[in-house]
């Protein structure tokens, strides 16, 4: 059985990360920015699992790190969405650019 080279997975992870980065930098909607962050975290996780499989399958470290990335991603998403809902309640917008309360 011919295995997929590790490089292919690393490329997928890198491209996924960069697509997410573009989403974070370019989108105006706060929810879309959060989706970009999720894509970036997914790219990182693909990298972690690929390194675990190809370099250290005997150790549990790679999968464990991916699990912690999941936990932090969940916490970040929940608080981020709560902030967006709070923003929507008080300012009637989901666009972070439009909130200029602290602008001098």
């Amino acid at each position, binding site marked *: 059985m011919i295995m997929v080279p*590790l490089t292919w997975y690393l490329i997928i992870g890198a491209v996924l990360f960069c697509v997410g980065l*573009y989403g974070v930098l370019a989108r*105006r909607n706060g929810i879309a920015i959060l989706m970009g962050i999720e*894509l970036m975290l997914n790219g990182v996780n693909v990298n972690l699992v690929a390194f675990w*499989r190809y370099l250290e399958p005997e150790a549990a470290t790679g999968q*464990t790190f991916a*699990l912690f990335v999941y936990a932090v*991603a969940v916490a970040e998403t929940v608080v981020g*969405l709560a902030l967006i809902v709070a923003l929507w309640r008080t300012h009637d917008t989901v666009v972070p650019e439009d909130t200029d309360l602290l602008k001098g």
Partner: protein
Amino acid sequence: MQISLQQILFIVFGAITLGAALLVVTRRNVFHAAVFLILSFFSVAGLYVLLEAPFLAAVQLFIYVGGIATLIILTIVRTRQTMHPHVPGTNRQWWAAALVAVALCAMLGWVVLDHDWGAAAGPVPKNSIALLGAALVNPEGFVLPLGITSVLLLVALIGAVTIARER
């Protein structure tokens, strides 16, 4: 050149992942973007199955598709009708953002392709999920990060309820 089934599956899942991810960041409609986000999560789970990490594939489906994507869609439905249809979905710096993303992608690709990663290691041990579970509760391993993670999740839960509560 001979192509194995594994490589075909990898190409299919990889193409779906990247195509859906591109649609997520380019679609103006946030709801459509969320649906493509779910598709992208699904095919990343497929990649985990190819990488012989079935537990992580299940976690990916439960947490991302079942949890995060549902939460995102609920938030979209809750905050509907707040973006006017004629307002663009991207900000004025989108070309700079694309430039940064492409440059970073080229740099990462160069690093990945330039480095010699050596031969792939041997097969995954049969009890890899049991090893993962043991490492999580091993005092020499990850029991302290695990405890801190549970506190983090509790703090996030309380914080989210407090922030989003109706006053």
